[in-house]
């Protein structure tokens, strides 16, 4: 039987505010345990939550950027359950009336097409603390630094049909929240993580199958693997005559498998009800307008502009706008190079991306900055060096030997454009290769490349290739 997977994602994006969602305590990551939790975060008796206005602005930004409705009135609700790292015995979240609902995002597919993924809702909530099970000799330590950190939970429609689509969607959301500067997207630190709802059904069947929820996956790679594993598991089970149980599962990256969480952990009736400590959140049109005016250029718009403005293919423009940092880097490079979008695109996606990849670095940690790379490209376009020499210069720049001009001067790599000097070199090459000259003149014009190579070798690559070509053709024509 042919099976079809149905996937929906719930993404938790930690909002990049300085202070917590309901208290003034700082949100910085990595501090000593329990040093960033105030009385409100600790849930001491009598304390009250006060909503951080910045989180509302951030949620509204996300809503506007995903064509969603930013609700004029939304309500904070309490989700009640006991756990030691949940100080109040309830989490303040949004339940029936979320701040954002009913939007979408278009993702690019591998076949070059695109697909619209619905965004059901996005709601604000507070994060819990952390339970630390190591180093406490059979006991559990509680760190409440993270308690009260603002989260935006983004819930998609079950619109994805493969792990690849799910990853494309997740990457798109990841890029978007970073463009919007509402989340740092750091997946190692847990600032961006997701739960995946996965089910399968016979191809062509309208009803959904029974779904399993895979909790807390914190990398794109794991999302892809976890979903693929889960799809296969469900198909195997169904084909073996079994049934799928609706349950919550955990992905174990070491074993590359999902397995059910203990049923105790999910047998919760959360007893949601509106939090009487917080008034309904009311957002007026003026606030929305103000947020709309503050929105940066969004990834899709930027991709289209790159295509039109720099003559890039949709694919290249898509790669360059996949992250705000990369797109910014590219545009700064173009500017520093004095135009030359295509050249810059080739370098950023080629040489630079290759080096970054090799060393596992992020664009923001590139040893060659946009200004420097632009400076190098300028020397290519003004004919100071050839593209080939440029790679040599780039390597030196990468190794920290200075900017392009410094490296070119220090290594004497400036291109020979003096046609007298080039002609001299050409004559020497021709004189040394009488057989090839004869063959060329006998009609084997492919040999031109051989002569160019020899001349470049003789000039250590510094001869202007165009000039070499021209002179070679002239001299060989005789």
């Amino acid at each position, binding site marked *: 039987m042919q099976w079809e997977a149905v996937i929906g994602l719930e993404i938790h994006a930690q909002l990049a505010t300085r202070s917590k969602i309901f208290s003034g305590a700082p949100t910085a990551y990595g501090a000593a345990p329990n040093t960033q939790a105030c009385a409100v975060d600790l*849930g001491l008796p*009598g304390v009250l939550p*006060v909503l951080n206005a910045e989180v509302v602005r951030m949620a509204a930004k996300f809503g506007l950027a995903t064509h969603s409705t930013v609700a004029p009135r939304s309500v904070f609700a309490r989700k009640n359950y006991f756990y030691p790292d949940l100080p109040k015995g309830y989490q303040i979240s949004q339940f029936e009336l979320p701040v954002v609902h009913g939007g979408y995002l278009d993702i690019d597919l591998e076949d070059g097409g695109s697909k619209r993924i619905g965004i059901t809702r996005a709601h604000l909530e507070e994060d819990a603390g952390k339970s630390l099970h190591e180093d406490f000799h059979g006991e559990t330590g509680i760190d409440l630094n993270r308690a009260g950190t603002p989260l935006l939970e983004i819930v998609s429609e079950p619109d994805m049909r493969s792990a690849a689509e799910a990853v494309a969607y997740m990457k798109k959301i990841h890029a978007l929240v970073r463009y919007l500067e509402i989340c740092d997207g750091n997946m190692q630190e847990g600032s961006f993580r997701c739960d995946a709802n996965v089910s399968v059904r016979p191809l062509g069947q309208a009803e959904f199958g029974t779904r399993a929820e895979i909790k807390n996956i914190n990398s794109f790679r794991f999302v892809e693997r976890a979903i693929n594993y889960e799809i296969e598991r469900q198909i195997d089970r169904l084909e073996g005559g079994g049934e799928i149980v609706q349950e919550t599962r955990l992905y174990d990256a070491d074993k590359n498998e999902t397995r059910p969480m203990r049923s105790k952990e999910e047998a919760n009736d959360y007893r949601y009800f509106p939090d009487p400590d917080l008034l309904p959140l009311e957002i007026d049109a003026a606030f929305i307008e103000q947020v709309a005016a503050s929105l940066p250029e969004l990834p899709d718009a930027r991709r289209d502009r790159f295509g039109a403005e720099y003559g890039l293919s949709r694919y290249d423009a898509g790669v360059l706008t996949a992250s705000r940092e990369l797109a910014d880097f590219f545009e700064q490079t173009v500017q520093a190079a004095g135009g030359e979008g295509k050249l810059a695109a080739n370098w950023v996606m080629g040489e630079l991306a290759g080096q970054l990849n090799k060393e596992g670095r992020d664009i923001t940690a590139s040893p060659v900055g946009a200004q420097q790379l632009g400076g190098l490209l300028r020397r290519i376009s003004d004919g100071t060096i050839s593209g080939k020499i440029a790679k040599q210069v780039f390597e030196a720049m990468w190794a920290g030997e200075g900017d392009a001009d410094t490296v070119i001067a220090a290594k004497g790599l400036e291109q020979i454009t003096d046609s007298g000097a080039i002609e001299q070199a050409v004559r020497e090459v021709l004189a040394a290769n009488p057989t090839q000259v004869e063959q060329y003149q006998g009609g084997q014009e492919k040999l031109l490349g051989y002569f160019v190579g020899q001349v470049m070798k003789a000039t250590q690559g510094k001869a202007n290739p165009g000039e070499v070509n021209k002179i070679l053709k002239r001299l060989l024509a005789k």
Partner: protein
Amino acid sequence: MFQKTISELAAGLRGNEYSSEELTRCFLERIERFDGQLNCLITLSAEQALSEAREADRRLRAGDAGPLTGIPYLHKDIFCTQGVRTSCGSRMLDNFIAPYDATVSEKLKAAGAVMLGKTNMDEFAMGSSNETSFYGPVKNPWDTQRVPGGSSGGSAAAVAARLAPLATGTDTGGSIRQPAALCGITGIKPTYGRVSRYGMIAFASSLDQGGAFAASAADAAALLQAMSGFDPRDSTSLERPLEDYSAELERDLAGLTIGLPKEYFGDGLDAGVAAAVAAAVEEYRRLGAEIRDISLPNAALSVPAYYVVAPAECSSNLSRMDGVRFGYRCENPRDLEDLYVRSRGEGFGAEVKRRILVGTYALSAGYYDAYYLKAQQVRRLIRDDFTRAFSEVDVILSPTAPAPAFRLGEKAGDPVSMYLSDIYTIAVNLAGLPALSIPAGFVDGLPVGLQLIGNYFAEGRLLNVAHRYQQVTDWHRRLPAGFAD
């Protein structure tokens, strides 16, 4: 000295007739002398009080004194006080010392008021008799075999016996007005949001409101003034200017219309209480008020609605008492579940557990719509009743409680009968309105309370209406025998 009004005490302090330290010692001595009989205090903070009094004396000498500077008061043990235990009447918080002051504590400190100690109360403010306190019941000074009412029973009994001229309270369903009535003093619960709830341990967040006890309306006005005001730390706090309650006190009552809701004078009302209230109504007529019969048709729904909303909110509010970070923890827990079950099982008393169970049930999947949602709808009906009434009258008058103080233990085994002692006070909390109780006579030597309910933000008007009555009556000046010297 202990019988003086707040303005007399303030004048005496300013006129150097006595110091705040002397005044404070006077009340500390009364506490020492009488509290053994009454059990009004959970924590006495004598040394801190004397040091605050000396600081107040410095302010008085420096001419930097407000109306409450140097005046002693007792603080309900539900308000967090930095450095002084805040037990909320529960074993659960018997060891809890808050690292912060409630906004009310902070405001009273800033006003220079001198805190003598923390008063006894029903556990987590859940009760109408003060019998649910972990620290034992408070006795009514008018008859120590009887309850003082609750939950702010310690505060009410203490003011009645003049262990302090002022005391704070909180009122979720009548917890200021009912004990004020049963103890023969004045108690006011302002509009929801007028007094900050920050640092006031939550029972039912949408109903809880801090307020004031004193012998008279004029004195209560002074305390309420100092407690009130917008607080950015409480999202439900009212962001509107605070009026001057004392300035309105003398306003004439001619032209005032008073409504008598027929539903508050029906079956179950003690005949003696009814007679005392009727006499007060006549007094108001003489003062120039026009009396009208009105109806609050949904009044009978208020107790059932309240006993869904309040337990639902408390079941969630009290979840933080889990034995993990503060408060009572059972000995040698086997595992996490054992820690929760025994810490909460041993830390909470029976009434608190009953309400947590009721509230948990009401919020459970499948019951939410039938209980919590329905109760919220009823709440709207009750509010609408009042809105209609206030389009016809300025103030609503009723008995505060259906009967005078009952005997200790009389209702302890019958929660429903206990809950019905708040039948006239609960609707006010569901609607968020201000209301007060003033003494209006006696039945068999026990005080009767008269309730005045005002429209939103009408605290000033209510205190004025109460004050004019107290100018022509002396119920509020009477002291229980045995505490009068």
